C-alpha cells in the first residue's frame, strides 16, 4: 500500500487505540468500531499531523481504510500542488 496508507495506520494505532493487527486495506472503519464522530476526529488528526487539507466528507464509516487513504492522498495532492 501507499505511504499515506501507512501513515493512516500509524494514526489509527497511536491516536485511536486500534490494534495494528486488525487494520487491513479492505477493513472498514465500521469494522474497527469507528463511527462518524471518530471519522471527523480522524480527519482532523490527519490534517494536523500530516499538514494536509482534507474535506470533512473525505471518509465515512463504511469506507475501507485503503479507499480512505486514496481519497486523502488525492485531496492532499490537490492542496499541495
Amino acid at each position, binding site marked *: 500500500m501507499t505511504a499515506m496508507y501507512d501513515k493512516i495506520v500509524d494514526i489509527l494505532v497511536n491516536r*485511536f*487505540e486500534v490494534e495494528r493487527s486488525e487494520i487491513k486495506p479492505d477493513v472498514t472503519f465500521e469494522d474497527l468500531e469507528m463511527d462518524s*464522530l*471518530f471519522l*471527523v*476526529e480522524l480527519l*482532523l488528526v490527519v*490534517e494536523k499531523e500530516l499538514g494536509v487539507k482534507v474535506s470533512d466528507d473525505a471518509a465515512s464509516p463504511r469506507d475501507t481504510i485503503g479507499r480512505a487513504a486514496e481519497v486523502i492522498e488525492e485531496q492532499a495532492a490537490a492542496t499541495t500542488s
Partner: protein
Amino acid sequence: MSARSVAVTGLGLVTAAGIGAEATWRGVCEARPTARRDPTLQGLPVDISYTVPEFNAAKLVGRRSNLVHDRFVQLAVVAAREAVADSGLDPRTWDGARVGVVVGCGLGGVSTWEQQHRILLDEGPGSVSALLIPLLVPNMVAGHLAMEFGARGPNFVTATACASGATAIGVATQLLHDDQCDVVIAGGSEAGVSPLIVTGFARMGALSRRLDEPATASRPFDADRDGFVIGEGSGVLVLEREADARARGARVRARVAGYGASADAHHMTAPDPSGAGALQALRTALASAGVSPGDVDHVNAHGTSTPLNDAAESKVLHQLLGARATVTSAKGAVGHSLGAAGAIEAALTVLTLENQTVPPTANLENLDPAVELDVVAKSPRAQRIDVAVSNSFGFGGQNAVLVLTSA
C-alpha cells in the same frame, strides 16, 4: 423493614484516598489527607487539590476511554463497576428495562470544555473535536453507565451543585418506591480540578489559601478553617427495594431510609444564616424515615471547611439534634468533590454503619468554640449507630439530606 425500605446492596468509591471502597475507607479512618500542590494549577491564585492517585483510564476503563470519556465519566465507570460487582447482580442476565441510573454531577466535562475552547480560539473551528459535546455534557455520565450495564430504565443526571450526589440517591429511592425500577445505580461523579473552575472558586473566596501546607488546608469545623480544598471522585451505590434484595439473598449493607430536600431561597452562594432551609430538609428526611431527631446517632456532615458552611451547619445540627449525635466530615481527608461529594459521603456513611465506627475529621485540631457538637477527631471512634444522617448543601441554596440506617 417497611414496605418503603430501600437496601444498599453494592458500593463503589474512587476518591483522593484511593481507588476502591476499601482504600477510601482506610484513608478516611486514618485521617490521612492527600492534598498537594497541583502542577496543572501552577500560577493560579490557588494551586492545591485532592486528586485520585494513579488513575490510569486506559487500563481501568478501557483502551479507547481517553478518546470518548471525560474524566468525570471515567471515575464513575470505575466506581459503578465496583458497586455492581459488589451487589452480586449480573448485568448480563438482569432485566435492563427495570434498571435505572441516577448520577449527580455539578459541572460535567469542564476540562474538555477548557481545552477545546482554547483550540477554538487558537486554531479555529475546523480544529474543534467532533467529540466535544459527547465528552462535556453532564448527562453523558448516566448515558455511559447505561451502555456499560445495559441499564435501560430511567436515566438522568441531577445537578444541585455540591448536593448533586445526595439528590441522586434520594431521587433513586423514589424511583424504587414508585416501582419504576427494581434496581437503581445511583451516585455522583465530578472531575472539576481544572484551571478555570479552580480560579472561579478562588475568585469567590471559597477556597483555602493555606497553599504552603496543602495537606492540612481542609479542616472542617476547625477554628482556623479558611475555605474548602477542591477534590474529585465518584461514589456509587446499588439500590433495591429491601424485600427484593432479601428475596434474592443479597447482602444488605445498609438502608436508605429517608430523604429530604429543600431550597434556602436566600442567596446565590451563602447559606441562610438562620439555617431554615437545611433544617427543613433534615426534618423532612427524618420524617420520611419515620424517626425522630432524638434517634439520630451520627451525622456525616457537609462540613466543607468554609467559615460560613460549617458555622451554619453546626448551628442547625445543634438546634435539631443537640450534642448527642457524633459528627464527622470526610472533606478533611478527601477534599470537596462538589457534585460527587454527597454520594461519596453517603457511601462512607454506609461503611460507618457497617463497621459501627465513626471515621475522624482529618485536620481538626482546635474545634471552633461556636461548634457545639461532638465532632470526632484524630482517630476512629467505635459507636453503636442505628440511624445516621448525611447532609449535603449546594450553591444555589439547594439542600439534600439522606437518612441511612443499619441493616
